[in-house]
């Protein structure tokens, strides 16, 4: 299969890259900057209705009855539906389909959708919502994951086991117990990670339309068009070929638009019922209820190490608060363990992760899905190991380096690995050697490392087809149109595809245009998640472009009567290398090829090689290539207020070849911003009633520009043998180690270890008080011992 074609990391025309590696503007940059870009909410169709959801005011309740009579009677109301109208369960993971578009029989969190109204305008729809009468029977609400683990009655989702466990994974590699017993040092501790949400600035929105032939078109602010397409077909019981899903310009996603959501089914259903287009735009509050953000985790870690700092074993037990539905939770539970096994080599590793349901907004994938939390716990613990052994924190990370072209303890194949260079870079840039441990009290530096996947070979639903496909169409004007199912969610995937095609075909960037994420026009791609797009869609793009290039080169070689090696496509021209006077614009080259072969076009695809450990779940987290990151964070701790200020963060990230260093730096900066944000300020917290403590951009404290540290993005390019021209991911990896590096910096600044997120000023002050009390106690012990006369 062409899908596994390996193109090699070299420039396609032998020597230097023409487009790749240079700081190009994003293809949609100007449209977004000038306001021309069309987002889903910009779509206005004739006769369009506006839909709203009635949501549950109770955290856990049975629905006894719903009366929509009065709502239907309101003038201007065109449709009112309830769970009975859309009863089919769905869920992004085929094994855990436990959601319905509108609640059927019971509600599971405050904000769970119960009914929907479509009306001539939003005000009428809201009025009608108020007229719907729902009778509830209240059930015990679980807000504490530990209680949900221990108590089975009532269950949030009925299951055979009669408990509230969503997923449990228990895997062990090597002899952990032996290492724990025989190692020179074991550090053990509890860590916790709180909830945080994505905070994409564009709220979720969908518009549905059914045309005269019965074709359903859905425009949606999704980051996975393909799964929405499948889910719509499933829930509406429609053949998929009668559905078209389009993702317009998207205002950020970060994982929060990966699941199929109620608004997509509801607008589609109501468009079918009314024959009119239907739009639903969520309020900011509703986005907080849709959530799918970072899972809170309670983590217990043990790390065994020898005196030389070599880690012998890691043992983890993790309780994951999943909120009310499964979402990607099966994968989260695996990721919480599977992704810790680099960039360090440990001979033995065990994890036992349990995800439970609670009556809170459902958690899901947020940038660094499932692995940011364990990474925090482990890297703080590793720092403690270094401290106890008197080894420099960077040095201990070097000593445990996993290496390249190797395997992790859980059977993941590692290809390129630039972690050592990442450490070197941040060490030098931050003047670590001169400054770590030597800054005045209250100021400090901390380091941490991490790794992340560039997509995985787990396709969510089992199938043998490619994971990414690309189609190219050539116009006689010289324009190459690229059709990709890949979702550009602001990360710049359309731009990357354009760069790669331009590079392969020797075109100027303005001769390539990209149409993406439209199921009618574009070949399937599995969507923007797990940092898979650059790697997989990029490889597919090269595959397609290379096939096309072959035809063009062949046509020219024949025409010029020279060997194919003499034909080069570069800068918008086809040139005879040995007689550069002989050249034609690409447009003419394409026309020649069209005349010679037929209408020009090509397809390309990518599929992962067989990867992963040979055990259940061994493929989850198995990636064709891993990115590596090191952070050094500098902090200033105000010991009177407990406030932590982060003046500077250095982040070195190994993204393989940087296809556009400016976009890579942007991803690094965004990741660091987000990591520091959730460590210090953001808290997706439910109050004692199960209500979100502050579902607004005022109360959910996302840092503003003036709260954002200065960030130095350092790019490490360990060109990967299988990535597109050697590229790997850059969108999620650079978040992970920012958070433990911050905790480790606080330790350097004032000798307190913060193991529980978020690092609020009150926690800092409490830890400082505890430290002073300990020091006072130690001092009195040592004075009393020294005053005891020797016997």
């Amino acid at each position, binding site marked *: 299969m062409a899908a596994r074609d390996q193109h090699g990391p070299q420039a396609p025309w032998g020597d230097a890259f023409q487009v790749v590696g240079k700081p190009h503007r994003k293809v949609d940059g100007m449209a977004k900057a000038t306001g021309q870009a069309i987002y889903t909410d910009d779509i206005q169709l004739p006769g369009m209705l506006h839909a709203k959801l009635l949501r549950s*005011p109770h955290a856990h309740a049975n629905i006894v009855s719903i009366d929509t009579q009065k709502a239907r009677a309101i003038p201007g109301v065109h449709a009112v539906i309830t769970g009975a109208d859309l009863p089919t369960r769905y869920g992004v993971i085929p094994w855990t389909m436990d959601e319905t578009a509108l609640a059927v029989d019971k509600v599971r969190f405050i904000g769970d959708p119960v009914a929907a109204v479509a009306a001539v305008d939003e005000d009428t729809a809201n009025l009608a919502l108020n007229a719907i009468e729902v009778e509830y029977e209240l059930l015990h609400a679980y807000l504490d994951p530990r209680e949900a683990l221990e108590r089975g009655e009532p269950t949030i989702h009925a299951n055979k086991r009669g408990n509230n466990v969503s997923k449990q994974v228990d895997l062990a590699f090597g002899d952990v117990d032996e290492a724990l017993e025989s190692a020179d040092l074991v550090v053990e501790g509890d860590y916790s990670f709180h909830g945080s949400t994505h905070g994409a600035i564009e709220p979720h929105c969908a518009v549905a339309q059914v045309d005269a032939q019965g074709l359903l078109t859905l425009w949606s602010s999704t980051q996975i068009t393909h799964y929405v397409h499948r889910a719509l077909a499933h829930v509406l019981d429609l053949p998929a070929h009668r559905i078209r899903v389009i993702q317009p310009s998207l205002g950020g996603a970060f994982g929060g638009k990966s699941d199929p959501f109620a608004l997509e089914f509801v607008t589609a259903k109501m468009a079918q019922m009314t024959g009119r287009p239907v739009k639903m735009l969520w*309020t900011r*509050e509703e986005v907080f209820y849709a959530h799918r953000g970072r899972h809170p985790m309670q983590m217990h870690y043990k790390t065994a190490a020898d005196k030389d700092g070599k880690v012998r074993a890691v043992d983890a037990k993790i309780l994951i608060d999943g909120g009310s539905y499964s979402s990607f939770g099966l994968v989260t539970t695996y990721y919480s363990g599977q992704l810790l096994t680099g960039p360090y080599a440990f001979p033995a590793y065990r994890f036992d992760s349990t995800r439970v349901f609670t009556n809170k907004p459902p958690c899901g994938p947020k940038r660094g899905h499932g692995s940011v939390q364990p990474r925090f716990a482990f890297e703080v613990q590793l720092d403690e190991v270094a401290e106890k052994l008197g080894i420099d924190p960077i040095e201990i990370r070097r000593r445990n380096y996993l290496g390249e072209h190797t395997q992790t303890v859980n059977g993941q194949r590692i290809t390129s690995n630039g972690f050592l260079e990442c450490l070197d870079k941040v060490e030098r840039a931050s003047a670590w050697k001169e400054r770590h441990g030597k800054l005045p009290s209250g100021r400090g530096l901390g380091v941490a490392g991490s790794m992340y996947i560039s997509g995985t070979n787990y396709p969510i639903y089992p199938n043998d087809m490619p994971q990414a496909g690309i189609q190219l169409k050539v116009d006689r004007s010289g324009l190459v149109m690229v059709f990709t199912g890949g979702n550009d969610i602001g990360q710049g995937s359309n731009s990357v595809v354009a760069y790669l095609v331009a590079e392969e075909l020797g075109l100027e960037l303005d001769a390539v245009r990209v149409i993406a994420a439209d199921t009618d026009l574009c070949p399937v791609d599995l969507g923007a998640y797990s940092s898979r797009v650059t790697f997989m869609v990029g490889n597919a793009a090269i595959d397609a472009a290379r096939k096309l290039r072959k035809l063009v080169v062949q046509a020219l070689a024949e025409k010029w009567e020279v060997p194919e090696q003499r034909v080069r496509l570069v800068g918008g021209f086809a040139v005879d290398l040995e007689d550069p006077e002989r050249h034609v614009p690409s447009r003419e080259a394409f026309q020649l090829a069209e005349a010679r072969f037929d209408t020009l076009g090509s397809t390309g695809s990518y599929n992962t090689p067989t990867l992963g450990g040979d055990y259940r779940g061994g493929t989850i987290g198995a990636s064709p290539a891993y990115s590596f990151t090191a952070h050094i964070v500098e902090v200033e701790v105000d010991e009177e*207020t407990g406030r932590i200020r982060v003046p500077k963060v250095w982040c070195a990230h190994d993204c393989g070849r940087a296809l556009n260093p400016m976009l890579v730096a942007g991803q690094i900066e965004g990741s660091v911003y987000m990591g520091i944000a959730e460590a210090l*300020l953001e808290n997706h917290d439910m109050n004692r009633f199960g*209500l979100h403590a502050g579902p607004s951009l005022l109360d959910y404290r996302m840092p*503003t520009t003036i*709260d954002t540290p200065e960030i130095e993005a350092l790019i490490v390019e360990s060109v990967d043998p299988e990535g597109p021209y050697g590229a790997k991911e850059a969108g999620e990896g650079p978040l992970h180690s920012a958070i433990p590096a911050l905790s480790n910096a606080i330790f350097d600044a004032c000798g307190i270890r913060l193991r529980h997120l978020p690092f*609020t000023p*009150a926690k800092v002050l409490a830890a400082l008080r505890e430290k002073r009390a300990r020091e006072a106690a130690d001092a009195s012990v040592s004075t009393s011992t020294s005053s005891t006369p020797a016997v």
Partner: protein
Amino acid sequence: MLRLPQFELIEPSSLYGALAALAEHGPDAMVLAGGTDLLPNMKHGLFEPRMLVSLAGIEELRGVQVTSEGGLSIGAMTPLADVADHPEVRRRAPALAQAAGLVAGPQLRSMGTLGGNVMLDTRCQWYNQTHFWRQALGFCLKKDGTVCHVVAGGKRCVAAASNDSVPALTTLGASLRFERLGQARTIAIDELWHSDGANNKRTEGGEILTRIEIPATPAGHLGAYGKLRDRGSIDFPLLGMAVRLDLDDQGLVEHADQVVVALVARPVRIKGVHEALLGLRPGSADFEQALVPLAEAARRQCRPMANIPGDEDWRREMVAVFTRRTFLAAAEGASD
């Protein structure tokens, strides 16, 4: 987006027109200044006016004037950004300029007015929420409900006065001019407040705050505003305090004052400040030493509650830290 309920908008171009409209429509009408608090509150269903009387077109309500006595007369409709940047305000009332410059963020300061800030509604995490949210909660005493979620069994709302300009205006001894159709009154800002968070101002229907008058400050006047908030912009105060130091011609404190908001429904004046600092020289060791017991006394007098976000115990601890720091910041002005 949350919907703004329907209302009628009147845009008079004279104060008389505005007063007449208010008189005519009674409790159905509310005054619209910059709208930065009123409109979000309407979206949340907290205020349900049928009519808004905009003051935006009334030129005489805008601008800062220096009075013949050397005081400041500030029109209620003066945007906070102008108050913060005005050279005379910065010189004569530094705490006010600082406070105005610390309200919300830049966009809100160019829309939000000083009058609107004085007239700002109290805030509470159980109240400043959408209708859906409050309905899920079962509402609260202040609006649509019967219980208070801050004080169990409480019979009176304790939502927090959160207007940043008020502590400064209070230490400056500001007075407020209110007008109703055919009537005007001027009261000391101290006299404005009730301790009921559901209605913390002694105002009468149909009144417009027209001017804020600040008496002349002496040559040795110093002032500063200290604001505790999570982020460097946007957030309402978790604690806001203004301090005042007037120095005699020897450079010794002859008058000192401190007022704090974001605690309870009304601003709180700290007792014993004047006595603690009288006769001391800012910047001296004595002055700094005197701040230690003063900070502790302030902490004892302030009891942050779970009405606004943020750990109450921490906020209380910060009263002491901010008292010291804000007086020191004011004292810094002495060396300029």
